[in-house]
């Protein structure tokens, strides 16, 4: 197993060295040694963000960060260059999909979100505004689907003003509260914005 001694290195060098080492391994183990809690935390987060699993052992002043990179990470990245390179945002401004019958709209929205899961890759972000925020709140019929999307790496953001308006403070069960600035920024940055 490769061992990287990053003790005494100033931030962000431990993360940089870890990245360089992980880039060299297709699959396998890497042990990174640091000697302060913040470097340990940073290296752990970096490894997790790259899809690796992490175990940490403390020994005296030192932290041993044991990283396991699973096979398929590189391959997955290589076969889906398109979606990784392009940023896709889904903008949902109502709990009903389409206009017309509301029951049909709820059914369609549920189907839309469930079908998103069936694809090999998911959008980067789902933006919920107006009554769309109700989809992420307690009692929503699509909570489980949204949770599964979130676990696959989709970032779900809910307009804070809308959450307040619908009196859903404390009742949002998936994703995080955001604001107009971030919502507009997400749409400007995305290569594609999908409005179901």
């Amino acid at each position, binding site marked *: 197993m490769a061992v990287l001694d990053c003790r005494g290195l100033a*931030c962000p060098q431990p993360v940089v060295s870890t990245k360089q080492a992980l880039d060299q391994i297709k699959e396998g183990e890497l042990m990174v040694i640091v000697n302060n809690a913040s470097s340990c935390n940073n290296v752990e*987060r970096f490894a997790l963000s790259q899809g690796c699993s992490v175990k940490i052992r403390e020994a005296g002043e030192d932290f041993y960060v044991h990283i396991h990179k699973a096979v398929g990470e590189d391959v997955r990245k290589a076969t889906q260059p398109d979606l990784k390179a392009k940023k896709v945002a889904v903008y949902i401004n109502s709990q009903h999909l389409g206009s017309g019958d509301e029951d049909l709209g709820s059914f369609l929205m549920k189907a839309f979100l469930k079908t998103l899961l069936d694809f090999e890759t998911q959008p980067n972000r789902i933006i919920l505004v107006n009554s769309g925020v109700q989809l992420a709140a307690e009692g929503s019929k699509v909570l489980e689907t949204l949770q599964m999307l979130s676990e696959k790496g989709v970032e779900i953001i809910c307009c*804070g003003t809308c959450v307040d308006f619908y009196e859903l403070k404390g009742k949002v069960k998936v994703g995080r509260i955001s*604001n107009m600035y*971030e919502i507009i920024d997400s749409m400007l940055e995305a290569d594609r914005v999908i409005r179901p």
Partner: protein
Amino acid sequence: MGPEDLDQVLKELPIPKDPKVLVGLDTSDDAGVYQLNEEVALVQTVDFFTPIVDDPFTFGQVAVANALSDVYAMGGTPLTGMNLVAFPIKTLPSSILKEILLGGLSKMKEAGVALVGGHTIEDPEIKYGLAVTGIVHPDKILTNAKARVGDKLVLTKPLGTGIISTALKAGMASQEAVRKIVESMVTLNRTAAEWMKKLGAHACTDITGFGFIGHVLEMATASRVGVVIHSGDVPVFPEAVEYARMGLIPGGAHSNQDFFSCKVEIRSDVQNLLVDIFYDPQTSGGLLISVPSSEAEKLIATLKKEGHGHSSIVGEVVEEPVGKIRLL
């Protein structure tokens, strides 16, 4: 220097009391204020640090904007500046130092501040900043100690410069992210300060090294009030969320968290990555203004028109818990 270490050192200093010192070290405020006469008090502050961006001219601009901010945060007008420089003149070309100083000078010109001197030492690590002197009317000082229950809290710039600078150092920051923080960091807080004074702000501080939470707590403690912050309303650079997820968090953020977290109650649905950004040390951050709630919307609307597009109402001042933050 982290808050814990600094606190240890300052606790032991036997500073004599002087009635002309209107604002000293007691309230951890942005600048020192010393009364000269009935109409005029001196405002003094000093700031310097190591490069956080690659371009020397930009670094000079950021360092000066950062130093001047403390005077604006007190409601004062900066008048003169003196350069503080540390530079490895034997190993790096002097043209780099010249660019840094040119950048600094350009910001001073913009602010109407006269460069009257400075001090330079040889050092293996580059550092640049400014010692600033300004003035303020003794009755119009905006300390961080007069926030009132019922006030709204306004923040004028987004958070996340520390994290994005760290990502830049690691070679992992996008050009767009760097462009955004540079634009924010070179913006003077002068206009925001002018408007907050016009609209009767009660208290103000600027967001810098102790991070958003650290500086909000300084205000809450000095004013003997509590603060409620609505995390979804706090402007942040979206890239900072991504880089925080990747562990590109400066050591200062961890120090800030270690020192201040005991005074923060965080509701369970607040995203951890946002909390990381709230502890992130800022460079040349925005003003945190405690303003009567009747003026808050007007202040936001005006600031947005005057080039502070990200200004937001981020919370309110409450009675309890004193000296603490409730983060919703």
